[in-house]
């Protein structure tokens, strides 16, 4: 039988678990860049820890922790330009915080307030998508429009290993391939979709290899290695801006916490597995790397932690002081203009001002 095509699945790692890096692959970054990454990681982790405790105290609703996925999220988010568009799922707090999204708004969102998802005007960040995987086509469409308008921008869409099983994934990647749209598919393979392990999500050995089926490049990166994620994303973004179309990046990482605060992962996964992965978690590794670079001092770390805590506390205060939403908002944002029935309903419900 003739062989009419051949494909290799590649894996990118730059810093290994011991903090040792492959200098040839290192993105060109100065100390301030590296510090910015570290500081963002700490900020995110602080945000996340506080979110978990606020939830326990009943001050916010169900929350989806990003613990363990900081490298995959921050590394990719920082590799993008200010005008690029982001299409997050519900677990992308770290992406949003990296882009400067106001943390108090994120907290508001998790308090069950839609206003938390009204991105500031200078941020092209779509509301988090709750139905898993359904956001992928949106990114493809925005990327189509960028190309149509000759804007040198990129659309980046985040989703999980679970999301990769949905038809939306397939149709989005296929359309992006056909349109050669400037879109980056940032698959956060954190090994679990609630209680369903990666191996039950698909029989394929990697998710990166799906890319071949759409004629687009695909790569698996060590999703706990923030510089590998950064580099792969940057390369994909450059290619996209250069008119070379979409890329699938599988960030191989791990969800260290429960699925959400409403979940109890001990029902379905072994503690040992979690512990193994805890040793590979991204902050540990980046700390070692910084240490080797001579950028890590005790004072610096303490300073960063303190600042993060202060910042987060201020944001929580702001979120909690924010006035409650107006019930009329329920109706007001449904259509561009109120329909006759909506006007009647506003009156009937006594929501009219």
């Amino acid at each position: 039988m003739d062989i009419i095509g051949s494909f290799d699945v590649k894996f990118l790692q730059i810093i290994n678990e011991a903090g040792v890096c492959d200098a040839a692959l290192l993105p060109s970054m100065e100390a301030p860049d590296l510090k910015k990454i570290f500081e963002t990681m700490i900020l995110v982790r602080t945000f996340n820890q506080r979110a978990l405790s606020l939830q326990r105290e009943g001050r916010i609703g169900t929350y989806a922790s990003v613990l363990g996925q900081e490298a995959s999220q921050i590394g990719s988010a920082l590799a993008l330009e200010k005008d690029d568009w982001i299409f997050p799922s519900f677990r992308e707090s770290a992406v949003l915080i990296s882009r400067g999204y106001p943390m108090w708004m994120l907290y508001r969102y998790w308090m069950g307030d839609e206003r938390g998802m009204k991105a500031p005007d200078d941020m092209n960040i779509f509301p988090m998508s709750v139905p898993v995987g359904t956001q992928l086509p949106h990114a493809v469409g925005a990327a189509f429009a960028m190309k149509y308008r000759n804007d040198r921008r990129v659309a980046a869409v985040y989703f999980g290993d679970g999301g990769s099983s949905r038809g939306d994934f397939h149709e989005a990647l296929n359309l992006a391939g056909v349109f050669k749209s400037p879109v980056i598919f940032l698959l956060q393979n954190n090994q679990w979709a609630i209680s369903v392990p990666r191996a039950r999500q698909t029989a394929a050995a990697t998710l990166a290899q799906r890319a071949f089926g759409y004629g687009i490049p695909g790569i698996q990166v060590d999703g706990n290695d923030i510089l590998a994620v950064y580099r792969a994303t940057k390369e994909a973004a450059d290619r996209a801006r250069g008119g070379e179309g979409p890329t699938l990046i599988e960030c191989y990482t791990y969800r260290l916490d429960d699925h959400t605060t409403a979940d109890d992962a001990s029902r379905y996964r072994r503690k040992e597995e979690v512990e193994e992965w805890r040793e590979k978690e991204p902050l540990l590794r980046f700390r070692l790397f910084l240490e080797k670079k001579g950028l890590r001092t005790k004072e610096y770390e303490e300073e960063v932690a303190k600042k993060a805590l202060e910042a987060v506390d201020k944001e929580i205060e702001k979120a909690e002081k924010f006035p409650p939403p107006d019930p009329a908002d329920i109706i007001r944002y449904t259509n561009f203009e109120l329909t006759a029935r909506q006007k009647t309903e506003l009156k009937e419900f006594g929501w009219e001002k």
Partner: protein
Amino acid sequence: MGKITIVQAINMALSEEMQRDTNVVIIGEDVGKDGGVFRVTEGLQEKFGPERVVDTPLSELGIIGSAIGMAAYGIKPVVEIQFMGFIYAGLEQIFSHASRLRSRSRGRFSAPIVVRTPYGIGIKPPELHSESAEALFCHMPGVKVVVPSTPYNAKGLLKSAIRDSDPVIFLEPSRLYRSIKAEVPEDDYTVPLGKAEVYQEGKEITVVAWGTMLHRAAEAAEGFDCEIIDLMTLKPLDEEAILKSVRKTGRLVVVHEASKSGGLGAEISALVAEEAVEYLKAPILRVAGPEAVIPMARLEDYYMPGKERIRKAYEKVMLY
């Protein structure tokens, strides 16, 4: 046996039906080890094994679509969709296939699947976890739509749904899952599909409701002489039960959570306007959600018809 919740009653129905018929298989996301996000299928994988309680990839279209093939082959899939807001990806499979296979093949094949899903407003969850889209299914010929309102009828209706020869969309009001408890016989009883029940007798206002709103409508009825009908099967409608009551009371209020425009209340109202208009003493009122997206937690209570809104409707029809 003590009082049990709707979650437990449904679990009991599933367990009994699986015991009774080895063709019954549960499929869905997290239904196995995890026992479902609401724990409705808890313990069933242990009892019946992973071949019969099947964890699937995140794939609503594929789950519902493959259930059609399973049912056509002769086994009985009971699908769990994690929240009603995620059933939309499977609508084509339901509308274009499950509901039409019998007609398309002139009876040679059919797809008597059961699709269970938590539905409705009231547990302050994230977005799209509170859908109340029963009307979509009620318009589509060939499927049945069922909503239980008590532990007793949850068990009996689900057993009927599993034994039914048509596809059944089984909507479980998530707000009621654990908020009502009642004695539920351990016997193998069923509650028939297609039959409404008079939940409370009365003479002056016919109230039609289902699921969570049934209980609200009943609470609001204090001081009114309401005949409250628990619809239970939304499609096919028990037309006779509704008409009989309205012919007696001359007044009709329908209460539902979904947006009023095009909701199932419209069909019930239209049925009466067509068949019993001459008995009407008052306008037919629908107490329902506004024409708006169901909000997240902070505004949820405003959206959902509350006691006051329902009482106002009772008051209004009593003015006539």
